[in-house]
C-alpha cells in the first residue's frame, strides 16, 4: 500500500493547482464545466474526455487501492488505468450502446444480472457522487480522495462485499464492481486503449501480446520459459 497521505490525495491537491492550465477540449459537457477544479491532463497533448477533475482524482484514488505501485509490478495509475476508464466511459460502452435499457425496472435476483436503468457512465458518475457524499457525512467532512489509502481500501471492501453501507442512489456493490472491472480491463488490455502503459503489465506476467504465432515454437518451448518483449497492436500495425 502506498503512503498514508495517498496518491489520490496528492492528485487532488495537484488538481486544484492545475485547473487553470486545462485545455478546453477536456470539458466535453456543460455538466463538466460546472466543476471548478479539474485533474491535470493524463499525458502531454491529451485530455480527459468524460471525467471531471474531481472525478479523475476519485478514480486515481480508487485505482491506487485496487492496483498500488509496488515492487511486484506497475501501479494502476501509472499504467494509465484512469485514462483507459475515462475513454471507455466517453465511448460506446460507457454510453450503454449495447445495453438493453427498456423498462420496466425493478426488483431482481442476482442471477438475472444487471437491472439498473443506467448506462455505465451514468452509474460511475452517480456512484462517485454517492461515495463522496457518504464520506463527507461519515468521515469528518472529507471526500473519498482525502481519505487515507487504508480508509479507502476498507470502504471499497465493504461496498463490494455488499456490507452495511447504503449509498444514497446506486447499489454500492454494483458501482464498485464496475469500477474494479474497468480498472482491470485497462490494466490488462492492449495499450492502444490508454492503459497497460509500455506493456508493463504484460511484461510482469510474461504475456507476449497480440502478435504471437507459435505453431513452430510450441514443441520447443513446452515446459520451458518463453521470454520475449511483448508486442501490442500499435507495434505490429
Amino acid at each position: 500500500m502506498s503512503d498514508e497521505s495517498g496518491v489520490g490525495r496528492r492528485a487532488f491537491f495537484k488538481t486544484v493547482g492545475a485547473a487553470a492550465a486545462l485545455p478546453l477540449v477536456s470539458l466535453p459537457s456543460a455538466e463538466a464545466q460546472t466543476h471548478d477544479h479539474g485533474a491535470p491532463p493524463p499525458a502531454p497533448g491529451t485530455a480527459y474526455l468524460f471525467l471531471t477533475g474531481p472525478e479523475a482524482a476519485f478514480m486515481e484514488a480508487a485505482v491506487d487501492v485496487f492496483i498500488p505501485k509496488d515492487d511486484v509490478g506497475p501501479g494502476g495509475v501509472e499504467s494509465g488505468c484512469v485514462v483507459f476508464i475515462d475513454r471507455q466511459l466517453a465511448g460506446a460502452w460507457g454510453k450503454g450502446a449495447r445495453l438493453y435499457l427498456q423498462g420496466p425496472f425493478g426488483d431482481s435476483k442476482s442471477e438475472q444480472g444487471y437491472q439498473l436503468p443506467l448506462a455505465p457512465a451514468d452509474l460511475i458518475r452517480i456512484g462517485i457522487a454517492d461515495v463522496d457524499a457518504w464520506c463527507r457525512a461519515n468521515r469528518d467532512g472529507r471526500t473519498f480522495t482525502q481519505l487515507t489509502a487504508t480508509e479507502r481500501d476498507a470502504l471499497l471492501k465493504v461496498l463490494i462485499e455488499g456490507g452495511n453501507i447504503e449509498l444514497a442512489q446506486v447499489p454500492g456493490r454494483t458501482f464498485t464492481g464496475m469500477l474494479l472491472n474497468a480498472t482491470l480491463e485497462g490494466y490488462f488490455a492492449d495499450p492502444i486503449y490508454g492503459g497497460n502503459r509500455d506493456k508493463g503489465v504484460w511484461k510482469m506476467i510474461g504475456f507476449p501480446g497480440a502478435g504471437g504465432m507459435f505453431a513452430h515454437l510450441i514443441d520447443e518451448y513446452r515446459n520451458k520459459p518463453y521470454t520475449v518483449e511483448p508486442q501490442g497492436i500499435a507495434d505490429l500495425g
Partner: protein
Amino acid sequence: MAIKLPAVDIVLVGMGWTGGIIAKELADTGLKIVGLERGADRSTAEDFSTPGNHDELRYAVRFDLMQNTARETLTFRHSVDQTALPMRQLGSFLPGEGLGGAGVHWNGVTWRWLPWDHEPAKRTATRYGRDAAPPEMRLQDWGISYDELEPYYDKFEYTCAVSGKAGNLGGKIVAGGNPFEGPRKREYPNPPLPGSHAGRLFTKAADSLGYHPFPSPAANASRAYVNPDGVQYGQCHICGYCERFGCEADAKASPHFTMFPLARKNPNFVLRTNSRVLKVLLDSTGRRATGVTYIDPRGREVEQPAGLVILSAFALNNVHLMLWSGIGKPYDPRTGEGVVGRNYGYQIGGGANVFFDERTIMNPFMGAGAMATGIDDFNGDNFDHLKFGFIGGGGISCSSAGGRPIQYRPVPPGTPLWGTDWKRAVKRHYNHTLYIGNQGSVMGYRHNYLDLDPTYRDAFGRPLLRMTFDYHENEKKQANFIADQCVKLGEAMGAERVARIAPPSRYSIVPYQSTHNTGGAIIGTDPKTSALNRYLQCWDVPNVFVTGASAFPQNAGRNPTGPVGALAYWAAEAIKTRYLKAPSPLVPA
C-alpha cells in the same frame, strides 16, 4: 406498407453454419434462393486481419462480433412463479451477428455426439428399465440414430479440416483416440494439433487413473489443407485468439470463407446482409408459409415471398421466430402440451484449477480454441451413471485455448480481490496453472422452456423471447460427481494445490458458461412431443424447415457444433433429393 418483392423458391433466415451449408448445397439446383442476414457482410481479409483482430477488449470483452442486446435480447427467470427480466447485456452465452454467425467466433471444437446422445430414451430403458428416469425428466430420441448420421458427421469434419485422432474405426478401437466414440468410417482429415504442456500433464494423470485420454477434435487445421469443396485452409498459428475472434489464417473453420463464397458463385443465390427478418408469413390456413418480412438497412419493411422457408438462425432466435410467427403449437408447461419452446436445454460446468510450482511452465498463450486433451470416461452412458444417482454425464477437458489476460488470470481461492497480494498471485500463477473442466449434459424438463415475454419488447416491437430455466437434481448430482473426478485428475498431477470449482446450484445468466443453448424446436417421431420431424421439417407447416441446436431434445456432454453441422447436411440432402421433387411432409404425421 411493406415493399413486396418478386417470389423466390427458397428463403433462408440467418447466415451462420447451417444457413451456409444449406445455401451451398442447394445453390446448384437452379432454384432462386435468397439468404437474409441481420448483420454485416464479412471477409477474412477485410475484417479479421492481424494485428487488429487480436484485440481482447474489443472482441472478447465488448463482444464486437456478437448479437447487440440493445436491439434483440430475451428475458430470463428460474421458474414459472417468477417475473422474467431482460438480459440487458450478454453474459452466459454469445450468439453471433453478421455473416458466418457464431461460426466466426467459435473455438472450433467439433465433436460427434455419442450414439447414446441420439437415442437416450431407448438406451436408458434398455439398460436400466422403463422407469429409470425421474418422472419430470423428458428423455427423447431424435428419430435418427448415430449410424444414420455418421456420413454427415464425416462430411462436416472433412469440410471443417478437423484435426484429431480416431478412436473407433469401423468398430475397431484405435489407440490414442476416443474409444467411446461411435464407429467412424475413416480417420479425421488432419492429425491432432501439437498439444500443450498442460495437455501432456493431463494425459499422464488420466493414464495413471486408468482413463482414456485423447486429443480433442479441432476445426483448427493442424496443417494447410484443401477441403472437398476446394476451399483452402491455412495452418493454425496456435496464436491463442480463437474464441470470440475471427481467424486471420482461415485455419479455424468458419462459414464466411467455406460456405458463402461457394454459394455466391451461383447467380441464383442472393445474399442480403443488414436485413433482419421479423416474421414468417403464413397463409390463412396457418399450415403454409408464404415468405418472410424483414427490415432493410433503410428501415423499410420488405416482404420476400418464397415457396420454402428455412430458419437457420441461432437456436434461440429460431424459436423466437416460430413463436412470433405462429408456427406450430406453443408449449404450455401447465398442461405439458404444445411443442414450440419445449425442452430448452443448456449445460452445467464445474471442475478444478490446478496450481503448480514455478518450474512447471504452461505458456498458456500458445493456444488454439480447440486444442485440448480430454476423457469421455464419464460422458453419456460410457459409465454406469445410474449407480451414482443420475442419468447423463459430461466430457472432461483440459483446454489450452489461449492466455489472454483480461479474462485469463487464475489465482487460488483466498486471494484478495485487489492490492499487492492480489497482484503477486496473478504474477505467480499466470504461467503455472491449468484448468480441468466438465461440460455436463442437461436433460429436458417439464418446466425448462421458451415462450414469448408478456412485458418486454425488442427494438422492432416484438415481444422478447422468455427463457424459464434452472438446474435439476439430476444435473447437479452429475456435475458434482464429475467435478470430483476433475479434482482427482488434478491431484494425480503432483501439483502444489488443486482447487475444486463447484458447479452452480442455480443457473445464472451473468457469467459466461457456453453458447450451447439447445432445444425449443426439437426433432422427434411424434408431432405431440416434437416440433420437427427427423428431417428438421415442421410437422405443422411442412414448407418450413428449422436447422440448428434448437432441434436437440436434450443437451449432451460435448460441444454441439458437430451434430449441428451434420444435421444441416442431412436436412439439405433430404430437401434436395426428396422435398424439392415433391413438396410435402417427408414423414407422415
